[in-house]
């Protein structure tokens, strides 16, 4: 062997050793063992660490079984729409994680936003991508009167309950108001004619109709509170780690999943926002997601805050069952936080790999493209992005996807 060959092979061997050692160090650890800090973070993400379902004092039937059953009926009821062909389940499909796989939700017409899945939503203090509603029941009322979603109106809904579901409603909420002589189609958010008719109805009667409408929302919310996250492979892994045991069977991680987990809770900083058992901090962040040119400019949470404060069905409204001091989220909302411009709600990552496309208007087609977006940290269309550029190798990107797949109940069969 010549001197130069031997020297170059020595360099190659030595360099590959250094690169391997460097990769291990960069991965955050030099072996299979997790540090105490990593173990604590892993345990904090486990589904069994989810706190008990938070009470909703603004909805006195939030945990009423009759109301939940009534809400389930309403959730799947297409007659709760302008033309009798759209229900909540049109977009929130029960066999698709209560979402619709479309970039933009489609009811009567096309909306501006991606349909959100519903598992665990009752743990979230703010609803919609921009948090413009402060409870599940207030949220449920929005699409019912939106011309592009259910396309119905307030008096039509009250009439429908009175003619078709009177007994079930009254068992929960007491007597329905007398709607004789009340026009079929009227509401404060309808077309010009419906709005004019609404104004012609006495204030007292309008208030009674509003109460029926609010109770529709409260019933749907009671049902939605029962939609929970399912245990995944990751949860079985995390439970073992938290207990100081070696994960067995499908709870054990392969090399790529382990690297993905380390990146997720380490260098890639995903866990900063995708935190806790829901993999969401339930807050709003500008991550430089592009503005689709065909859609109206979207300010995100910055526009959602004033809407929530002005919502006639919020926690401080007369339809709320809460005392004002129980409305902490509204009372202490940060009203003029400049970071909320184009900030959108952190979605839970549970089940996320099997529900593309991604982001608030379905801008990003695949999970791989999402990871590329976070690594590239593009300039935001407006406001300031919280992302910092990140260098990820192809195996590292694949590792993050492998880890995210562990959060999908569909790819996590119980052995």
């Amino acid at each position, binding site marked *: 062997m010549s001197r130069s060959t031997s*020297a170059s092979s*020595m*360099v190659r061997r*030595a*360099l590959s050793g*250094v690169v391997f050692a*460097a990769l291990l*160090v*960069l991965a955050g650890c030099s072996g299979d063992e997790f540090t105490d800090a990593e173990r604590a*973070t892993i345990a*904090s993400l486990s589904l069994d660490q989810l*706190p008990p379902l938070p009470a909703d004092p603004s909805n006195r039937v939030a945990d009423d079984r009759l109301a939940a059953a009534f809400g389930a009926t309403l959730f799947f009821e297409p007659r709760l729409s302008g033309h009798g062909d759209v229900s909540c389940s049109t977009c929130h499909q029960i066999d698709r994680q209560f979402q619709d796989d479309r970039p933009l939700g489609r009811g009567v017409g096309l909306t501006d936003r991606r349909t959100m899945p519903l598992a665990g939503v009752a743990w979230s*203090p703010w609803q919609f991508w921009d948090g413009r509603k402060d409870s599940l029941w207030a949220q449920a009322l929005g699409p019912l009167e939106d011309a592009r979603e259910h396309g119905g109106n307030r008096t039509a809904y009250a009439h429908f309950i009175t003619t078709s579901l009177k007994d079930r409603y009254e068992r929960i909420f007491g007597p329905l108001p007398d709607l004789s002589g009340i026009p079929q189609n009227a509401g404060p958010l309808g077309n010009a004619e419906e709005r004019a008719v609404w104004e012609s109805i006495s204030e007292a009667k309008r208030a009674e109709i509003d109460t029926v409408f609010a109770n529709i929302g409260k019933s749907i919310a009671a049902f939605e509170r029962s939609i929970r996250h399912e245990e995944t492979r990751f949860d079985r892994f995390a439970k073992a780690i938290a207990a100081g045991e070696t994960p067995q069977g499908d709870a054990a991680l392969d090399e790529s999943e382990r690297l993905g987990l380390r990146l997720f809770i*380490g*260098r890639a*900083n995903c*866990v*900063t*926002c995708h*935190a*806790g058992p829901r993999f969401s*901090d*339930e*807050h709003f962040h500008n991550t430089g997601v592009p503005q689709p040119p065909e859609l109206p400019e979207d300010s995100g949470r910055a526009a959602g805050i004033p809407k929530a404060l002005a919502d006639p069905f919020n926690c401080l409204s007369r339809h709320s069952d809460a005392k004002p001091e129980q409305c*902490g*989220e509204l*009372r*202490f*909302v*940060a*009203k003029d*936080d400049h*970071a909320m411009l184009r900030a959108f709600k952190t979605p839970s990552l549970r089940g996320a790999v099997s529900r593309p496309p991604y982001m608030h208007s379905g801008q990003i087609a695949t999970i791989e493209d999402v990871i590329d977006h976070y690594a590239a940290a593009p300039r935001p269309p407006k406001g300031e992005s*919280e992302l910092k550029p990140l260098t990820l190798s192809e195996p590292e990107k694949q590792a993050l996807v492998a880890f995210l797949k562990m959060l999908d109940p569909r790819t996590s069969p119980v052995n």
Partner: protein
Amino acid sequence: MGLKGKIGIALGAVVIAVAAAVGYMMFVMAPPSDLDLARSKKTAKGLYAVEIAPENPAFERNMLHGWIATVKTADGVAVEDAQITVDGGMPQHGHGLPTAPQVTAALGDGRYRIEGVRFNMSGWWEFKLHVSAAAGEDDVTFNLSL
């Protein structure tokens, strides 16, 4: 210098570069190791001594909760007439508090209830109080590591 020596220097440089990069990332990620986590402090100009305590010591990340701030003069007399405003955020992420906490009650003995606090992320948080009372205006910053 022989070839082996040059290789050794080159490898040493690679190792140092990697170590520096890792060290930098850890510095960026983790709260400073010498962070002062005291919950009882003098204000910046020394006008007041302020102590903070969560109303529920077992408060959890992401839950709206309250704190009690106890304000005394530098010589230990409870301050009953203080106006207190709350600010803060995550210095390593460049953002403020996710909510706008407020003092909602003066409880007597220099104790004030602060409601509407939420920490939505783990890591280093600053919790800043601006105190205004007879002795003057002063500020104090507490560090919390969650």
